[in-house]
């Protein structure tokens, strides 16, 4: 099993694209959690989310871009 694991690790390294998506989904979960928890009006800031995830805030921004859904951004303007 150790050998298989090593084979998988050496031959199928985790690509950045996947890791970014993982961080991004976690960031969204944290955001929702913070919003529900505090019943607040304002969205949490990037820094608050970064603190929970224990990564630099720049990394949160970077990761979120990987799952950005551009279409949804424009709905408020068209409506």
């Amino acid at each position: 099993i150790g050998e298989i694991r090593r084979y998988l690790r050496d031959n199928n390294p985790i690509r950045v694209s996947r890791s970014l998506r993982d961080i991004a989904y976690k960031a969204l979960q944290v955001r929702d959690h913070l919003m529900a928890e505090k019943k607040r009006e304002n969205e949490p800031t990037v820094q608050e989310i970064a603190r929970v995830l224990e990564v630099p805030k720049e990394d949160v921004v970077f990761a979120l871009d990987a799952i950005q859904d551009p279409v949804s951004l424009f709905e408020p303007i068209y409506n």
Partner: protein
Amino acid sequence: MQNRMELSFSAISSNESFARVTVAAFIAQIDPTMEEITEIKTVVSEAVTNSIIHGYHNQSEGKVYITASIENECLELIIRDEGMGITDLEEARQPLYTTKPELERSGMGFTIMENFCDEMKVVSEPMLGTSIFLKKQLSTKKAIYN
């Protein structure tokens, strides 16, 4: 204190998300909300896309230039190209006006930039290029916790 950065990159569309992330990471330092980040990323996307597809006609030669500075939670952005420029600026800024109707979201770039920022100025010279000056006041932490 003022913090400043200048960026230039090859005018190819795979650099759009790079440009967006760079500006967003720069302003991450002053702790914006997710919403502000999204707005700024959208604005950068629109301006950079315009430079690449209209300014340089997707020719992949040429560069896009971005300057960002932050002072007192106010972001100033300049997005510039040395492309073909715009002949009739007033017309170009009209909602839904586009010279490339085959694209998605046609004609809304300038309208989006104007809406997501507090100030927008466009300077363009045919054959010399286009510069977009944008200002956006970000909410401070103080304002949020008041």
